[in-house]
């Protein structure tokens, strides 16, 4: 056995959209690996195909072509799900069950005996903060409470591999923070986590590696830090800006924008800022301040996604 918990190999998924309508291409030729004990984030805008990928991995959708496997077992093989926990997106848990009954029903279906479930239920309800709600019917739960229950359910069988599809959806800020802590603790216990999200900050905070998916295609895979190569940008404020110098600057640095006495520019390397300063000094322009501009991950993510859409 190698150290890959999840392997996806040239996976393509087309949904048939019904009679006489063209099929929807949800995933196109996706290949990726998730290593054991890694928190892997799948990031992408709405409709990118994140949920589709998870559903194929867990066997509720069949791939059109290519393969996806967990611990070497394909989605059609029930053994692939022996040690998996799953929190689906848009879940609708049986409203007629209480939170506690839900753990017994779904834990039982995972093969756990009621003795084992009884032994774990209390600690799990404490963990997700639902202790006083466990004997209430799910139909009375709020969205965030259902999400917490779903998380408890996903952790019940002590899975090695946990799939979470938008786990913080509908959860309040405190809950989000708690979930983040739970995920990091799970990683310490040696679990592998596959996290779907469209929230960049969430992925950034917990994931080791991230894949960016857009319109069914894999745009990028890599460690969070180097994923979005943020180019250095600067803001230079001058005492006075003669138009001639301005023109010369924009010719030399096409990304430069001049508004009154302020120049903003995006550069290939941080060192290039000295070239601009030299140019301005040669023309006798006095500098009031030079400061780096922080381009947020959010902005460069948007740029990456939009850039990807244009060359289709």
């Amino acid at each position: 056995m190698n150290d890959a918990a999840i392997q996806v190999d040239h996976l393509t998924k087309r949904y048939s959209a019904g009679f006489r309508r063209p099929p929807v291409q949800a995933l196109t030729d996706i290949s990726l690996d998730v290593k054991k004990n890694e928190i892997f984030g799948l990031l992408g805008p709405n409709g990118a195909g994140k949920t589709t990928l998870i559903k194929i991995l867990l066997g509720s959708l069949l791939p059109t072509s290519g393969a996806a496997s967990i611990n070497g077992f394909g989605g059609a093989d029930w053994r692939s799900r022996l040690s998996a926990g799953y929190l689906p997106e848009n879940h609708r848990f049986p409203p007629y069950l209480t939170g506690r009954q839900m753990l017994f029903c779904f834990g039982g279906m995972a093969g756990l005996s009621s003795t084992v479930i009884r032994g774990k239920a209390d600690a799990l309800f404490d963990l997700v903060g639902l202790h006083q709600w466990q004997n209430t019917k799910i139909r009375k739960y709020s969205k965030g409470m259902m999400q917490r229950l779903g998380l408890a359910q996903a952790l019940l069988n002590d899975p090695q591999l946990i799939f979470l599809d938008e786990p913080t959806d509908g959860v309040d800020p405190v809950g989000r923070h708690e979930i983040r802590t739970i995920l990091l603790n799970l990683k310490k216990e040696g679990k592998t986590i596959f996290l779907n999200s469209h929230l960049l900050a969430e992925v950034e905070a917990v994931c080791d590696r991230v894949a960016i998916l857009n319109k069914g295609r894999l745009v990028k895979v890599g460690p969070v830090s180097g994923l979005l190569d943020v180019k250095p940008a600067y803001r230079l404020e001058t005492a006075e800006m003669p138009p001639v110098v301005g023109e010369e600057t924009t010719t030399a640095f096409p990304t430069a924008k001049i508004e009154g006495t302020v120049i903003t520019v995006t550069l290939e390397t941080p060192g290039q800022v000295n070239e601009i300063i030299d140019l301005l000094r040669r023309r006798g322009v006095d500098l009031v301040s030079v400061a780096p501009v922080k381009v947020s991950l959010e902005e460069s993510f948007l740029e990456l996604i939009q850039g990807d859409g244009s060359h289709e």
Partner: protein
Amino acid sequence: MNKFAAILYDSFLEIKDRKIFYFYWLVAGVLIIVFGLLPSLNINGRDILEGNLLSPEVLNGFIARFFDGFLGFVIFLLVFGSAGLAPSFLSKGRVELVLSKPIDRWRLLSMKFLAVYLVKAAVLAVMATAIWLTLSLRLGMFNWGFFPGLLFACLQLLVVYAIVFFFGVLTNSAASAIMGYFVIRIGTDLLASRKVVYPLLGEKSLWKTILDGVYHVSPKIGEMSENIGPIMTGKGMADFYPVWSTVLIAVVVFLVTLLYFNRKDY
């Protein structure tokens, strides 16, 4: 075993949550009260009211006819009560989680079918037995033919539920499952009396062949149920053909359901 127990537990709780579940017991309760108010007739002790108007044979026939109708009615209620269970098990937001459990798809669906069937058959058995017991105590006469009759009704329920289940899995809708079942049920009742229209078809035997063919491959539920009365009165099954052919067809329908489910995207 844990897996089946969990599915059974879940199915029971879901059935219990539906209003129709209380309606079953209301029907049973009313009948028990009505029969409980009957004058006590000690038939086997020959203490019959006013001469020989009621012989044990006549009463036996009455009991058989009553249960014939009653069991058919309860099966009809159970169709309504169970049509929505497969669609809700396979509904969006729930099916993903169910399918993520380490169970083969065909095994999962078989367990769900069996779980719902067992709960419904138990309801049928408890209701019918309670009523039979009340009636027998009042009449002072125990018709033991009731139990083979009940067993046969359970077989009938199995066949009926296989068809309802098929439409439920296929359409994912309770209403469509009920409609599908009744279309089949009414269609086959018409087919059973197809000989009535034979004179109208003239010499063209092709139509007769087609009608006969369709009749033979369709589940003959109405005809099958006509056996309940004779079994209770100890006469045995009137006609074996509708019974075994319907059971066989139900098995095929169930296998088709499994095949379909195995390849479906959820």
